[in-house]
């Protein structure tokens, strides 16, 4: 657990405390508890060659800086960078690599990341091998002389496959590779990959960190001064930075992260149990369930299981009926917000992955993904149950 002492005392702060206190005491002019939104693009220079520390907002903005410092501290990293979206954070990070560099990537992966890699970055001579990162030997076998990095999602989106982060980071170190972890599903509240040996952590801040389905944002956290300098250069040069209002909304989200994550998790357990016992459901994917194949590994590297639950219904024609019958849970493309959302990966988040690859990986047309919100668990369980019940009935007959 990353901790720092409370200023002027020897008292160590827990992550919850640190998150709530983000930005407090930083605004010295008025003492405002919440850091102000700096809507300035340019900063008056005292003279030629002199600077207040801020020159041009793309390079650095005071509001964004508070957010960047907070996420770096929460992830136990050295530097944080806020980007216009999660994809902008991934894209900016990939600027570290050059033509002919090779990167090993989680086989099960967010469709937008796959699209960026396969349809944009391959045109620039980067190449990617998608490997089952649950199997460290498979990762080792995929390493080539040109390999520069391993890109990990754990749990993966949407199949919740677990990668042993310590093992993969160790393997990467042995071969001089960077370990990059998309930590969107877990957040630093439950999992801190940099403490387990990773070099870079990425977030779609749109999800749990923002937490309210109201802001698009991406974050990068780096370890080590050399890597931090390189990413800082790319962040400024590519220019996909986060605006001040959006930075402020994310700061606001961070303050309640711990509370929300606990509630997302307890609700997810309730929903997962409801799904497990329902005849319309064939499989449930949630790392918190003891029977989940990655449960042990996940428990050894994370302190919680978060709020994402995927499941397969028995037949694809149940899907539209289930979605149409959801009353409380919105059918929408995103996750990690206070409101529960249901996503159909095959046509939404993973639509850009070719069908045969998608089905080989297991993202089939019977798979649904739930982002369990912070509503009352009984209401969520009831909504899921009635929609599943409806999906079993067709034309007045049980399927």
């Amino acid at each position: 657990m990353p901790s720092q002492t409370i200023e002027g005392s020897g008292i160590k702060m827990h992550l919850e405390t640190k998150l709530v206190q983000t930005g407090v005491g930083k605004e010295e002019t008025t003492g405002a508890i919440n850091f102000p939104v700096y809507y300035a693009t340019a900063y008056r220079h005292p003279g030629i060659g002199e600077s207040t520390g801020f020159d041009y907002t793309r390079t650095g903005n005071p509001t964004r800086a508070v957010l960047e410092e907070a996420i770096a501290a929460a992830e136990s990293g050295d530097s944080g960078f806020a980007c216009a979206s999660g994809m902008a954070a991934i894209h900016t990070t990939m600027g570290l690599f050059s033509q002919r560099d090779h990167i090993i990537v989680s086989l099960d992966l967010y469709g937008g990341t796959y699209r960026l890699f396969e349809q944009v970055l391959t045109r620039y001579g980067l190449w990617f091998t998608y490997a089952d990162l649950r199997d460290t030997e498979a990762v080792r076998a995929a390493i080539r002389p040109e390999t520069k990095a391993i890109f990990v999602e754990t749990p993966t989106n949407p199949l919740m496959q677990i990668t042993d982060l310590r093992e993969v980071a160790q393997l990467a170190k042995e071969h001089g590779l960077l370990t990059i972890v998309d930590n969107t599903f877990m957040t630093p509240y439950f999992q801190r990959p940099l403490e387990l040996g990773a070099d870079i952590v990425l977030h779609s801040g749109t999800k749990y960190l923002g937490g309210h389905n109201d802001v698009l944002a991406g974050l990068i956290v780096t370890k080590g001064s050399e890597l931090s300098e390189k990413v800082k250069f790319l962040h400024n040069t590519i220019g996909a930075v986060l605006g001040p209002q959006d930075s402020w909304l994310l700061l606001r989200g961070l303050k309640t992260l711990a509370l929300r994550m606990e509630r997302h998790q307890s609700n997810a357990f309730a929903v997962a149990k409801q799904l497990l016992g329902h005849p319309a459901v064939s499989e449930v994917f949630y790392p918190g369930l003891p029977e989940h194949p990655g449960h042990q590994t996940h428990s050894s590297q994370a302190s919680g299981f978060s709020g994402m639950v995927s499941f397969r219904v028995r037949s694809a024609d149940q899907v539209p009926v289930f979605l149409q019958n959801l009353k409380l849970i919105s059918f929408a493309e995103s996750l990690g917000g206070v409101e529960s959302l249901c996503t159909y990966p095959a046509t939404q988040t993973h639509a850009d992955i070719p069908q045969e690859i998608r089905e080989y990986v297991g993202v089939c047309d019977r798979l649904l993904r739930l982002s369990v919100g912070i509503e009352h668990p009984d209401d969520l369980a009831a909504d899921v149950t009635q929609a599943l019940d409806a999906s079993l009935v067709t034309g007045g007959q049980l399927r």
Partner: protein
Amino acid sequence: MNFATKALHGVSCFDPVTGASSVPIYQASTFHQADLDAPGLYDYARSGNPTRHALEEAIAVLEGGTRGFAFASGMAAISSVFMLFSAGDHIVVAEDVYGGTFRFLTQVLSRMGIEVTFVDTTCTHAVENAIKPGTKGIYLETPSNPTLKVTDLAAVCRIAKKHDLLVMVDNTFMTPYYQKPLELGADVVIHSATKFIGGHSDVIAGLAVTKDEALGKQLYFIQNGMGAILGAQDSWLVMRGLKTLKARLDVSSRSAETIAQWLSQHPAVSRVYYTGLCTHAGHDVQTSQASGHGAVLSFDVGSRERAKAVFDRVKLPIVAVSLGAVETILSYPAAMSHAAMPPEERKKRGITDGLIRLSAGLEDTEDLLQDLAQALDSLHELRIPDDKKTFSRV
């Protein structure tokens, strides 16, 4: 419809649901889908947000293009547009591009296998000579930053058409109010909307407009795929700026012209760069392709020491990186906008240690002149060394 009217009433200026006089800020990341088989107009805000969309439509209409795109910054717009190319492609680029663009091209894109040749695009022949079998595009800034060199857009576009090349124009200095590159044959127009379009030094934003639908589709794929999009609040601020663009530019450009004329008579100044001066080398081309000269001018006071003295003495202008704001901004290209460029490259482009860039704001012109006068009058008269005699005052 004339420009000012179009900017106010051209497109999506009202909220269709409530009739509100300004588009609401949709601070939503995702949109509920009513039907699995019939996705709504918006599904995820990276792919499309109604507030951002209103801005994108507005800039497309003003630039005379088919599709507009809003990005997180001017550099995000530029880096996204360059993703239209692939490894092995060659691009001809105006030699005095903005330092940030230069940095992106030489330190990021070069690693991705894109080759760039910098040429003096004011010389149309030089552009044609730089074209080779792998060339795919031409990237222009006119007038250029900070020495305001003018490229003949129609002439370069004709060459590009002949060789089937994409022409991209950074139109930040002019805005569509003064210059519409798509009408002169360009394919993509780019803006740092942080500057004149936003206009208030309060928002970082980039815009791009494509001329045809096919290119628009490609750029949309990249905008959504790379995700360097503009947030909803920032989109709204840019739209707010757009409404007063004409009024602001009218005032600022008038001031810039008066200041340029005044500076060119001042003994402490060795050279003034402003396309509105009829002695400027690009004056005629500028007059033929743009309806104004804009609010940015540069002037040379001879040395770093003298420039420093000016910066120390001025009271009104903000000394800062950036331009195109309601406040007059003075900047020092050698250490600010073009710091990313190596000194020898700067020298080649006339970005000397005595060069100062002024972006005229909305202050009273007389006040600005008085302030500049008190800063410059006390500088000792500039003695021009014999070997620089040709570099005389314009």
